[in-house]
């Protein structure tokens, strides 16, 4: 791989998906792009990168951008953001959303485990909240991931990561060596391709936003821009969940952390200032 080619790739990725390729990412590039090079008929990754730089093939650019995203996710990842939803966020919103509709957006939904975890959890609480309907939107830049998310098909390994066995029995059926989510849970989520670098206006007003484990790949300026767009979409009394390694501190003052609730943020607007930032007050 020539330095010009890797530099061009790094600049392209930053522009296309916000991904910052750190220095010495040769191994990452090689392992992610070798299958693409093979599939697209290039002799090796170096040849793929040269073609990427010298020809402007939009389809190839997208394929490479998609292949370079990290899609790691699992059911009920980190647990806390789901426990907090159940114990505090949902009860608070159930009181104020008189229509019963609560709008949730998973902004980097990857292969769907995050929105599906919410849908299964809600289904388990059906009797407790008979009136509540979660309107869940899952978006991601990766078509590859969205396709899998939409299929609701997971490997044996994936259904054993974070998913309690009772839920697996209740909501999955076995299809050959794979496990498929029941239509009821699958139909509870709308999936759509969306790049967080684009104008996010079409997403509309949301009550809860999960934006977890995606900002970590961006530089400060991109993080700020995305967070500020997200703030515009979030209801004044809405909630934002970030990943365990993410924060708004030092990036934007559009949000403030909730006391005693790790990873949970509320808006920092004048209107929101009068709302309690602590549950139960």
């Amino acid at each position, binding site marked *: 791989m020539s330095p010009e080619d890797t530099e061009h790739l790094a600049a392209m990725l930053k522009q296309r998906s916000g991904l910052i390729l750190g220095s010495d990412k040769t191994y990452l590039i090689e392992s992610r792009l070798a299958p693409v090079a093979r599939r697209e008929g290039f002799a090796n990754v170096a040849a793929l990168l040269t073609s990427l730089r010298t020809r402007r093939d939009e389809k190839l650019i997208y394929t490479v951008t998609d292949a370079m995203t990290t899609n790691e996710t699992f059911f009920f990842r980190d647990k806390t953001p789901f426990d907090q939803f159940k114990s505090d966020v949902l009860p608070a919103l159930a009181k104020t959303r008189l229509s019963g509709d609560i709008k949730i957006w998973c902004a980097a939904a990857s292969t769907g485990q995050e929105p599906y975890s919410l849908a299964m959890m809600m289904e388990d609480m059906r009797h407790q909240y008979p009136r509540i309907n979660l309107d869940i939107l899952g978006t991601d830049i990766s078509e590859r991931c969205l396709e899998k998310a939409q299929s609701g098909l997971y490997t044996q390994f994936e259904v054993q990561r974070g998913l*309690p*066995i009772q839920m697996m029995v209740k909501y999955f059926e*076995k299809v050959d060596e794979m496990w498929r989510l029941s239509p009821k849970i699958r139909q509870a989520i709308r999936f759509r391709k969306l790049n967080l670098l684009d104008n996010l206006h079409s997403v509309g007003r949301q009550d809860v936003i999960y934006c977890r484990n995606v900002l970590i790949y961006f530089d400060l300026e991109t993080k700020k821009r995305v967070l500020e767009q997200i703030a515009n979409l979030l209801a004044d009394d809405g909630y934002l969940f970030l990943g365990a390694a993410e924060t708004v501190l030092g990036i934007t003052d559009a949000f403030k952390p909730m006391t005693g609730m790790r990873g949970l943020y509320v808006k920092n607007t004048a209107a929101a200032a009068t709302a309690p930032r602590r549950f139960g007050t």
Partner: protein
Amino acid sequence: MKTCLVVDDSRVIRKVARRILENLQFEVLEAADGLEALNACKTAMPNAILLDWNMPVMDGITFLRQLRKEEGGKAPVVVFCTTENDLSHITEALTEGASEYIMKPFDGEILEAKFSEVGLI
């Protein structure tokens, strides 16, 4: 220190499970079939049991039914760990009082996640 009885007729699996569980701070005991496991439990009830299904002499589900009839036999948290991976086996295991179910092949991450799911760690 919590104790975990690993019940599997494969010595290799027992060894793998032992290594993972010891890293999770368990004291590990081993049994090669259901009957050996039952005898071990009569001597001292472990906190947790990692249980294979198909074994010679006495299989895992028979062991589990017998265990639950023993004095103090309701206490151990039972996690199946087997190649049986269809819903009917899983449902039967849960009905008989297993708390979690691991489908082989498994690794340290899955075992740890399942044990934490049932509050063992």
